[in-house]
Structures are given as structure tokens and as C-alpha cells.
């Protein structure tokens, strides 16, 4: 508790007018010169060759612009990096840690922040921070309802979109009721990743959004008294569709890539992802047929941001901040949004950018399957992190040992 209060105090200080633009600039110069020659170990999920190639490109930029070497530590799961910092803390390693920068959000962030495992606040002192669209994309400072307080810096926006084969389906089902009807009419052609996988839990949260009378309830921690009544409709919905799911609900794909593979193999006709540009990018890479299109639900779908954070004991703190800042550079953001590269949504306020930077975004061809930003529909805020934990545990109890 004491440590957290201390962090709040520091966070408050960073925003006080004492630190004028000039002192910030001088401070940043110091960070730049300290960063020069450093090697930053960025722990990031390494399961997608497109993302790996993008990170390699960011590394080239960092080397050319700032003399910072970027090493991508490819993880199978972000929890590996979190557990690593945790065991360093347990071993008393307060400096010289292995992780300099980590791709993080949601519960991983909440856990690290609560345990005092993060360096900061640093995000709002980055020179590119003023370009971030804080007003239009509140998710860049609120991570699963938890204020980021400058302990992590955003670098990509994601929103849940459904993907379907337009050859198999004329009218995509844009409400949960239509979705259930379609799934039942087409047995074996829809499924979702098995919770506690994050995309699987996101599907549960999305259904829950459609079931609760007042969505504001989801912004609060789970209340034991009202919880059973709140989720009753969710379980009823799942009970209804499960017999008609892929493999009759007796097996589930492990994660988002496994779900995407089922769509690519033609085993399922309807899928979903946490990246509106994924379908176009996969079509461009030749991994999906070009008849795949995307849609969102009436009433909106869940959206969140991806962040980078710096562990409290990072060996190359200055270099890590330089990378975090570089990730907010309009050129880097525009490249990430290019469906031929990643298809990630930008965290910047494109309209407010200087003309030259803005033109990079205007020039992008979003790809055949990507919805224009205006058609994405409302972006729903992530529920409080306690919902994910509780829903995953209850799903496992209800369906996870069913056989």
C-alpha cells in the first residue's frame, strides 16, 4: 500500500507545472545520451511472424536514429516475463534485471503494478506523448478500468471484430440472438478459444455486455451478491449454443491463432479476432481466402490498447524509454496500421497530426476486409479485471471438466 501511494505521489508530481517543457526537454536529452549504445531486451509475444518482422524493423529505426540496439525476446506467453521479474524480485535483484521492456496489458499490468514491479511514471513525459489521442481513445490511459498512471505507454489499439466467409454467409449476424440462431442452424461451424485464454474470455465478456441491463456494472469489481443474477443469462446463452459449436463443444481451440487456423482450414465459417486489420493482413499474406470479410455487433464490441512497460529493475531504462517513445512516432504508427505490415489501429489522434505525418495515414490502403474506422461501431471499454478472472474460473467449473 505504501509503495502504491508513493507511486501516486510521483505520478502527481510529473503532471505538476513545475516540470516545464524546457526541463522535460533537458531531461529527455539526458535520457537520449544515456540510451546511446544500450541494448534493450524487449520481451514480447513471438507467435506472429508479422509482429516479429515489425519489431525487427523498429529495431533498425532505433539503431539508425538513436544508436539503441533492440533485441526482441520472443515469448510464448507474456506471463513468462512477468514471472521472470517476479522471481528476480524474490531473488533480491533490484538492478540489472533481464527484462528492459515488456509488451503488456490487462491483468498482467494490474499484477505488476500492484506488486510494485514497474518503473514509472514515465509515459506522459515522453516527447511523443502529446500526439496520443487520450480524449478520443480513453483506453490508452485506462487499462481494464485501471488507470495507467504513466506506468505503461500505449502503442496499438485493438477492437474485437468478427470474421466470416462471404461465400458461406450472405448476411452476417450482427446481434447475439442472430449469432446464436446462425450457430444452431450451422452446427460445427462456430467456436471460441477455451477460457482462460484471453480471447475466449473476451468473447464471454462481449456476450455479457449484451446481457446486462446496465453496462456500467461491468466497470466495477465483481460484486458477489449480484454476480449470479448478472451472469445467469450468459450461461443460458452458452448452454444454448454449445451443442451446436465446433466438435459439439467437446473441444475448443487453444487461442486466437488456433481459432484463426480453423477459419483458414475451412473447419469453421465464423470467427473473431482482436485486431480489425487481421483478416486483411492474413489475406495479403495468402493465409486466408480473399472472400473473408469482417463485421462488428450492433451496440459495439470490446476494445483495448496494447502497452509497453518497464520493470523496476530494468538494466537499460533509458534505452527502454527511447523505444517506448519511438513506438509513438507517426511514421512507426502508420507502418503498424498498414495491413500489409500489421493492420493494428493507431493510438494517435490522426486528425491533429501535422500535415506530413497525417498524409502517411491517409495514404494507407486498409485492405479488402477491414472496416473503415467509422463503421467499426462503438468501442466498449474492457470490464474490470476481476470479471475476467471470475468468468474464466466459472467457465472452467461449468464446462472445463465436463467430459
Amino acid at each position, binding site marked *: 500500500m505504501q509503495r502504491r501511494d508513493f507511486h501516486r505521489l510521483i505520478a502527481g508530481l510529473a503532471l505538476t507545472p513545475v516540470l516545464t517543457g524546457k526541463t522535460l526537454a533537458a531531461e529527455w536529452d539526458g535520457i537520449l545520451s544515456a540510451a546511446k549504445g544500450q541494448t534493450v531486451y524487449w520481451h514480447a509475444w513471438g507467435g506472429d*511472424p508479422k509482429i516479429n518482422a515489425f519489431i525487427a524493423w523498429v529495431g533498425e529505426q532505433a539503431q539508425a536514429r538513436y544508436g539503441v540496439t533492440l533485441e526482441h*525476446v520472443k*515469448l510464448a506467453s507474456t*506471463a513468462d516475463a512477468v514471472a521472470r521479474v517476479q522471481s528476480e524480485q524474490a531473488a533480491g535483484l533490484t538492478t540489472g534485471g533481464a527484462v528492459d521492456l515488456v509488451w503488456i496489458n490487462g491483468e498482467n499490468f494490474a*499484477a505488476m503494478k500492484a506488486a510494485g514491479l514497474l518503473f514509472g511514471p514515465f509515459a506522459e513525459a515522453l516527447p511523443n506523448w502529446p500526439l496520443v489521442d487520450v480524449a478520443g481513445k480513453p483506453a490508452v490511459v485506462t487499462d481494464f478500468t485501471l488507470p495507467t498512471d504513466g506506468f505503461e505507454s500505449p502503442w496499438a489499439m485493438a477492437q474485437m471484430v468478427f470474421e466470416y466467409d462471404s461465400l458461406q454467409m450472405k448476411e452476417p449476424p450482427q446481434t447475439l440472438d442472430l449469432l446464436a440462431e446462425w450457430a444452431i442452424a450451422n452446427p460445427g461451424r462456430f467456436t471460441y478459444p477455451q477460457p482462460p485464454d484471453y480471447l475466449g474470455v473476451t468473447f464471454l465478456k462481449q456476450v455479457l455486455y449484451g446481457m446486462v441491463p446496465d453496462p456500467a456494472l461491468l466497470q466495477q469489481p465483481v460484486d458477489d451478491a449480484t454476480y449470479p443474477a448478472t451472469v445467469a443469462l450468459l450461461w443460458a446463452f452458452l448452454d444454448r449454443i454449445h451443442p451446436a459449436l465446433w466438435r459439439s463443444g467437446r*473441444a475448443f481451440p487453444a487461442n486466437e491463432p488456433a481459432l484463426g487456423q480453423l477459419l483458414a482450414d475451412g473447419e469453421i465459417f465464423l470467427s473473431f479476432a482482436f485486431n480489425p486489420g487481421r483478416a486483411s493482413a492474413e489475406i495479403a499474406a495468402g493465409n486466408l481466402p480473399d472472400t473473408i470479410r469482417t463485421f462488428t455487433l450492433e451496440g459495439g464490441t470490446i476494445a483495448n490498447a496494447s502497452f509497453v512497460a518497464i520493470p523496476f529493475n530494468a538494466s537499460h531504462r533509458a534505452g527502454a524509454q527511447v523505444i517506448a517513445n519511438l513506438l509513438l512516432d507517426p511514421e512507426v504508427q502508420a507502418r503498424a496500421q498498414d495491413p500489409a505490415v500489421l493492420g493494428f489501429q493507431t493510438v494517435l489522434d490522426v486528425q491533429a497530426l501535422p500535415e506530413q505525418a497525417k498524409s502517411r495515414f491517409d495514404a494507407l490502403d486498409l485492405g479488402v476486409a477491414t472496416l473503415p474506422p467509422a463503421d467499426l461501431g462503438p468501442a466498449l471499454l474492457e470490464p474490470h479485471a476481476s470479471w475476467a478472472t471470475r468468468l474464466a474460473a466459472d467457465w*472452467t467449473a461449468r464446462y472445463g471438466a465436463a*467430459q
Partner: protein
Amino acid sequence: MAAPVLAGLAGTLFPALSNGAEGFRTLAAWPGLPRASALSLGSGLASTALSLFLCITLLAAFYGTGGFTPLRRLLAPLLSVPHAAAALGLAFLIAPSGWIARALSPWATGWTAPPDLLILNDAYGVSLTLGLVAKELPFLLLMALSSLNAAQTDRAMTTASTLGYGRVSGFVLTVLPGLYRQLRLPVYAVLAYAMTSVDMAMILGPTLPPTLSQQVVIWRMVPDLTQQTTAAAGAIWQLTLVLFALFLWRICEGLARHAVTLWATAGLRAPGLDAPARVLARLAASTIGLALCLGLASLALWSIAGDWRFPDALPRSFTLNAWHIALPDLLPATGLTLAIALAATLPALALTLGCLEAETRHGLSATPRAMTLLYLPLVIPQIAFLPGLQTFALMVGAEGTWPAVAATHLVFVLPYVFLSLSQPYRSLDPRLTTVGRALGKTEARIFWTLRLPLLLAPVLTALAIGMAISVGQYLPTLLVGGGRVTTLTTDAVALSSGGNRRVIGSFALLQMLLPALFFGLALALPRLIWRNRRGMLA
């Protein structure tokens, strides 16, 4: 060998018991526990028993006959297939949208879309068990081959057959008892591995609930880290299950011994068993060989496939994209993988030779207790002691460097090198040494000019096995390397979490290449060096 394992175990036991053993309470509250435990026990015991049974059948039916040569050639490449790659290849072969279904659709099956059939991830772990057998049978076979003395076996089989015994009966009664004594520890290692394998279970195993080892990994990865104590308790429970399975196995060993004794005293010649054994052995060997080869071929094809959709039997277009992605990481990762593998395997080889040489010179013999200690790292589930070991390495400040990773690999490589080398070493004809001594040669001279040249083939095989084991290590490399030591396997596993078959295909092939190279050397070098000494190749 015991020290790092025990240190690691302590590091796992501590969090499991912390907070009033809270981890065990949440473990017990998990509704999937009984089924997951049963799945671990069932698939582990079934796959080990089946592998051993098939191994014995193959040997009994074909050992010493011409039919055995192609099988022996196939062993090395099959052994160098990483478990995850083998599983993925098999999965693509038998899935409803897989290669077999594609080849038969739609002309034979009428399927225009993949059927909704639960073949992979079946509830009883049948796919998983068969996948494990495909991977463990070649290993047991190799271990058996390196334990069998060709001349002795031949004599025993000939004697048995002159007494009217069938091949199977003769093998079981004269060769098997001695062979199994040598094979016992490898079998235990297989049993422990089969029960705790994560990568194969992830791809082929059931999911509702998954096997215990998989669930432990899932708990470890829960983002808010609240399940770490549950994971630790699960790892300890996993260890208990392995010990229980070993106990059950020992009971079965006793029963089997009793049965063989009854068989022998009854004097059953049972020549009628030979024909079915031959059929079964041929069927098993060709099915497994074909399945693994086709699985790998499919991965190779995926690595250059462009558009490849159901029900096309072959890709519509080809691209080198996946290889372009793999190439930049390839050279540094290959170099480091090779360096670590050599740095772990050469000392393991030296230690093994040293031990065995001391045994021979001083007439010592390894006590069962010493052997058990040596094999501890193979029997204790990795997940039960590696996280603890990582904390330990952090405290002494040794982690994050490739020598530290190589040192950890040594723990896993040494037992296998010892396993594969000890029997050929011990079964060297002692009369040769006596002759050497009689001619006034020193012990060192005898070792370098007599024993080592005679053992060239087994030493090279042991080296190749050690390399294959080191190359295949994922968890130890990741945990002790702190993510800074990137090998082909850490890259391959990180990429396979993304499920991209094209990239997985290219990395799996690369991952196979190094061990395959050394297995190839182990086959080719003795032939090259002894091309004028036919007797040395026997």
C-alpha cells in the same frame, strides 16, 4: 545430478506450501483434477506399455534378420524429430481438415467442407497416446539396440530354436530378461516423460480438462499471477503421480517376471506366435514410420505453401515467404544452438567415458542407488524443479548466459549419454583388454588405442543423442537463459504458439537438421574410417 534437481524441487515446494498450503487447497478445488490426473496416468502408462510391447515384438520378430536393416536406418531421422514438430505433423495428417481427409475429398468422401469429427483432442487421450508411442518407440528401440550384444543374442536365439522354440518364445525366454534389466531405466524415463509432456499434449491431447501437466502450464501463465501457488502444488502433485505410476509399473514388472517364469517352466515353444508377431511388427513399424514421415513431409510442404485450402490435396501456389522470415534468425540461432549442444554434450561424453573407464579399470560397478540419482532429472517432471532452479541460478547470478544454459542442459544430456553408452562399454569383450595388458600396454594406451576405436560407433551415437536432447530443450533454455539465449527451439516454440503452420514447418525442419546431421555422422563415420576393417562394423 541430484543437487540441482533437489534445489529446484525445494524452490517449487516452498511456494506450494506457502500461505498455509493455499496452493493445494485451490488445486483440490479444481473440478478437473480427478479426470486430469487419470488422463496423465492413463496416457502415460498406456503409451509406455504399448511402446515397450511393440519394441519387444519388433526385436523378437526381426532382430538379426535382414528385415531389421531398413528399420535401423530409419531410427536416427525419426529420433531427431522434435516432439512438437512430430505432434503437429501427425495432427495435420489425421485432423478432419488434414492431409488424409484432403487427399480423399471430395471424390471419395463427398466432403466439400471438413467434417465435424472429434479426432484430435479426444476425451480419452487416444490421439495423445498414439502420438507418444510414435515418438517413444524409436527411442526404446535405439536403447535396446545399444544394449543388445549381437553375438550373444544370436547364440541364445540359435540354441532356443534348435530346441524347437519359436522366435518370439526364444526371445522372451532367453534374451528379454537380460535386456529388460538394461532397459528398465530408459522405460522409467519414457513413462515419466509421457506423463508430463506438455508440447505433445497441447497439440494432440484432450482439453476439457487437459492433462495435468498442461493445466500446470496454464496456471503458470494466468496473467494476474494468482495461480502460481496452484501451479506449484500441481507440479508437486504431478511428481506424486509419476512416483505412483512407477510404483504401479514395478508391480507389473513383478507380475510379468512371474508370467515369464511360468512360461519357461511350462516349456511352451509357441512357434504359432511368430507369424502374428511378424505381421504386427511390420504393421506397427510401417504405420509409425509412414505417419511420422508423412507428417514431416506435410510440414515441409507447408513451409513452401502459398494458398492451400480444404479440400485441395496439394497447395495451389508456392512461396518462400516462411523461409525468408526464418532466415534472419537462422544463422545466429543455429550457431548458438550448436555451441550450447556441444558445450553440454562433450563434457557429458567425457564424464561418461571417465566413469565407465574407472569402472572397468577398478572392477567397480554402479550401485542401483547411484544410477537412480543419475536418472533423477529424467524422472522428476521438469515443471516441478525448473522454476525453482531458475530462482537458484538468479541468486548466484549465473543466469542469462549461454554457458549457464549449457550447464543446465548437461543435467538432462548426461543421463541419456550414459544410458546409450554404458551397455556397449560394459559388453566389450574383456579378453581384448587382457591381451593388451599381456602385451605390456598401459591402461591409458589400452583406452585410446583399443577400447575407444572399438567403441567408435556407440560413442558417436551417444554424441548424437546428447546433441538431439540438448537441441530439443525448451523450458530450461527459456528459464535459465532469461530470454537472452535464443536457440532454434525457443524460436520454434514461440512461433508455434502463433499456430502458423508455414513458419512452424520451416523451423521444425531446421530444428531437426542439427541432430540429423550428427546421427548421420554417427552412421557414416565408422563406415568411412573402418572401410577396410569389416569386422569393426559388426
